[in-house]
């Protein structure tokens, strides 16, 4: 079975089972391929941070620990914009859609410091044109990341 139907149009695509270690391996493979696409180390770092958050969100929340399924990532490059599509067949996002991704407050006492809530903030900070839709049993998330190329 394949999740992503338009592989021929993508510059890069990868499909793998949901899981924390599978995400780690998939990221390593994607980053390795990105290194051949004339991107700066800073650009590649941004992609790794955003994809890491998006993919681990799918593992933890869409599929959760009880379920398994496939995750598909594809990338289409247009000049200085990298457009990603990420598909999964896990549970859908809440009706309010993508989280705002506000930075949790850091000004409280030590024991009130946040240990989570950074993920969507990082995604929204480094990516733009985020779009989420539920198509049948599939979640489709698209986002773009600007790249400068080698500086």
């Amino acid at each position, binding site marked *: 079975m394949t999740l992503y139907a338009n592989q021929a149009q993508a510059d890069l695509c990868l499909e793998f089972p949901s899981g*924390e*270690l599978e*995400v*780690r391996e998939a990221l390593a493979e994607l980053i390795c391929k990105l290194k051949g696409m004339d991107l700066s*180390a*800073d650009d590649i*770092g*941004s992609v*790794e*941070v955003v994809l*890491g*958050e998006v993919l*681990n969100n799918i*593992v*933890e929340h869409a599929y959760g620990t009880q379920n398994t399924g496939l995750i598909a990532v594809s990338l289409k490059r247009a000049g200085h914009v990298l457009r990603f599509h990420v598909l999964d067949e896990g549970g859908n996002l809440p009706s309010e859609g993508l989280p705002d991704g506000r*930075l949790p407050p*850091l000004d409280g006492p*030590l*024991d009130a*410091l*946040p*240990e*989570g*809530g*950074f*993920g969507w*903030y*990082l995604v929204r*900070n*480094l990516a733009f044109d985020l779009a989420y839709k539920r198509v049948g049993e599939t979640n489709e998330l698209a986002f773009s990341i600007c790249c400068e190329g080698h500086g």
Partner: protein
Amino acid sequence: MKFDCRETSDLLFVKVLAERIDAAAALKFKDSLREFTGQAKASHVVLDLSEVGFIDSSGLGAVVAVMKLMGSTKRLDLAGLTPTVEKVFRLTRMDSIFTIHAQAEDVNKLYKAG
């Protein structure tokens, strides 16, 4: 996940010998650091991240959790942030919560100077 721990009378250096502190590694990282900092006599801990090329929000949360577990009587500094790790700390403003040294050895100089 491996670590290199070195303790002097004032300081405990913990070097993370792993490329990633990600969702798959965060729990092991937190448990190991809890053990090291709990056993140490030194009240000043320096976490050397110079071998770590990537951290995600789970890893960042684990570093914050370790600092909170150490309480107000012990101090946790960070050292040797690589570019992507530095970016994550800067964007989340966690660089304002931790004292960050360019290299772990720089902390020794603070004690010698003082």
